């Protein structure tokens, strides 16, 4: 059977057609989810009223809910989905580990530590100063540094320990260690700062100020740009570092670009929305299986679209449409992501291949 399969003359063309089709469907889905996310919420507003609110033709309360809350939240959801999924894709390729992702490897925790050091660390000196007065950029940059430090550490461990599961366990240990450090910081910080920090850890998509959303937009756009720049490097990393070098890849430069990119993406999201799990692992796998390719020229845009759509869907579900309760979005992403992760582990055991 091995040699029996014949392909059409130029199969690239049919692939391309199929891929365009998948992108169209995903794009449509994304638009639908975005609209649904705006139309649905804990306060039920008729679609017609939502439409009018969009064009500034509704009463001020509804107007307020739509433009100051729901639209920014939907945009945040998209940015978060894009950022986490892209950083997951890059980490999986760079570490050649299908289980890699910002959450499980402790990169989000590292970002959290960065935030904690700023919020709690400065508290002793600055007294009851307001959290927001630190400035969103200081917050987000400290998250980048924290995320970057953990990424470099994981890279170092990955280069010594080849076993995928061992690296994963070490990542979980790192995350636990970091949360222990944060607990100690909390112990020494004053009440006001502690409260600000605890509120932050609960994280959500809807708590961003306009200023924070701007910082997040700029950061994620930078991350997307760096991801596009790193497409060729990621394709080379697929076949392993030695081969990548042998075809002329500058390993140090590429690593620096990709590390900065994942740190910016995972760090910014964690800084403003708190830790959100499993999207980073799951979405790249969905993209690979949907497009049946390992080529990052397709996976990067694919991950962007799927990541945004999945996060919007998670947000819609977390609002429990029709009820006034809102679930933490983190629990929804876990419920979506964990089955994918288990499936990948089982498949990995079976055919011993990476991804």
């Amino acid at each position, binding site marked *: 059977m091995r040699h029996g399969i014949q392909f059409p003359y130029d199969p690239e063309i049919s692939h391309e057609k199929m891929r365009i089709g998948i992108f169209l469907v995903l794009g449509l889905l994304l638009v639908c989810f975005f609209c649904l996310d705006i139309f649905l919420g804990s306060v039920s507003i008729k679609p017609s009223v939502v439409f009018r609110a969009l064009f500034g033709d509704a009463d001020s309360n509804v107007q307020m809910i739509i433009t100051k809350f729901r639209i920014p939240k939907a945009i945040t959801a998209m940015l978060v989905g894009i950022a986490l999924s892209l950083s997951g894709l890059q980490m999986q390729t760079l570490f050649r580990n299908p289980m890699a992702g910002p959450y499980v490897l402790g990169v989000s925790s590292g970002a959290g530590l960065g935030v904690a050091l700023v919020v709690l660390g400065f508290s002793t000196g600055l007294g009851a100063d307001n959290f927001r007065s630190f400035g969103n950029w200081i917050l987000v940059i400290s998250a980048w540094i924290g995320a970057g430090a953990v990424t470099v550490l994981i890279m170092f461990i990955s280069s010594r320990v080849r076993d995928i599961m061992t690296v994963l366990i070490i990542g979980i240990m790192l995350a636990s260690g970091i949360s222990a450090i944060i607990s100690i910081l909390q112990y020494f910080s004053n009440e006001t700062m502690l409260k600000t920090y605890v509120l932050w850890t609960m994280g959500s998509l809807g708590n961003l100020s306009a200023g924070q959303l701007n910082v997040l937009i700029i950061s994620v756009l930078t991350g997307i740009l760096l991801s596009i720049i790193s497409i*060729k490097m990621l*394709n080379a990393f697929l076949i392993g570092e030695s081969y990548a*070098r*042998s*075809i002329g890849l500058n390993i140090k430069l590429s690593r620096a670009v990709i590390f900065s990119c994942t740190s910016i993406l995972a760090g910014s999201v964690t800084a403003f929305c708190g830790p959100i799990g499993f999207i980073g692992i799951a979405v790249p796998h969905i993209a690979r299986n949907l497009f*049946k*390719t*390992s080529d990052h020229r397709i996976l990067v845009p694919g991950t962007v679209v799927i990541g945004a759509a999945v996060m919007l869907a998670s947000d819609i579900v977390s609002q429990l449409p029709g009820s006034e309760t809102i679930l933490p979005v983190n629990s929804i992403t876990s419920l979506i992501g964990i089955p994918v992760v288990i499936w990948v582990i089982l498949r990995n055991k079976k*055919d011993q291949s990476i991804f």
Partner: protein
Amino acid sequence: MENSGEILQLESLKIGYASGNYSGTILPALSASVYRGELVAVIGRNGIGKSTLLRTIMNLQPSLGGKVMISGENSAEFTGLKLAQKIGYISTEIVKISHMRVYDLVALGRFPYTNWIGRIDHNAHVIIMEAIIKAGLAHFENRFVSELSDGERQRAMIARVLAQDTDIMIMDEPTAFLDISGKFGIMNLMRQLTASGRTILFSTNDFTIALNRADKIWLMQEDGMTEGAPEDLLMVKAFDHLFDQAVVGFDPEDGSFIFRTELRGEIFIEGESDLRHWTVKALARAGFSVTNVKTIPYIQLPSGNKEWVLFAGGTSQSFRSLYDLVSRLKKII
């Protein structure tokens, strides 16, 4: 093909691992050369540093002294990209990534030539498809690499290096994971590639392949590198140090191994037929050497009756197979 000079040359190259306070070279400085279009086998016992040598030539690990000259230029001065346009490399590392198609893997060979995003234009597409066909994988371009057999995957790796369009290919144990037909398939392919002007340097633990197929051998031993045609090395008995002489010997006739067995006795074989060769072999394995003086017992090769006859004193016994004959001989001698 434009010049036939040394395409690859080691000048007092020192290889090994330098880490922390320990910096040790495994071997004395190595000097050797390869000419364009040659198939050169690097052999030596396990752990002598064959892979280390190949990795050092590839600049994947730093040399501890000396130079690697490529077409007369010091490769230490090359950028990674320039080196990638001169030498292609296949290690023992298995690339097993699901969702990666043969085409995508081979396309990575174009890495040193494509633009910032790795766009495959028409020209590159033609080179990739030609490489796939040359490597014997026609119609395989859309197969997933993870679903290939070991031999097919090795061909895909070779296709990738072909697409890289380098003069020199370096392969670390290219036949290590392959079954017999896979081994010979890959060796034949390597031979074809050198015939079309490429130069291949490969390491192997398979002496039979190295001695029969290579134009030149680089023999790595504790006291340094010896290079030459397989026959040159055979004549100076260069391989004799490689083996435990008591257990295994070397048949200079065809470059195969002989396992030495304890000698049980000598025996005479009567008759001349093409079965003599196999009979001698089977007897040798059981520990009997063949003599020209008539012995008791002695063996008569099958003629019309297709049976071996064993004459012992006045009696004779017939055997339908060599196996039966040798079993009987073991009992009586």
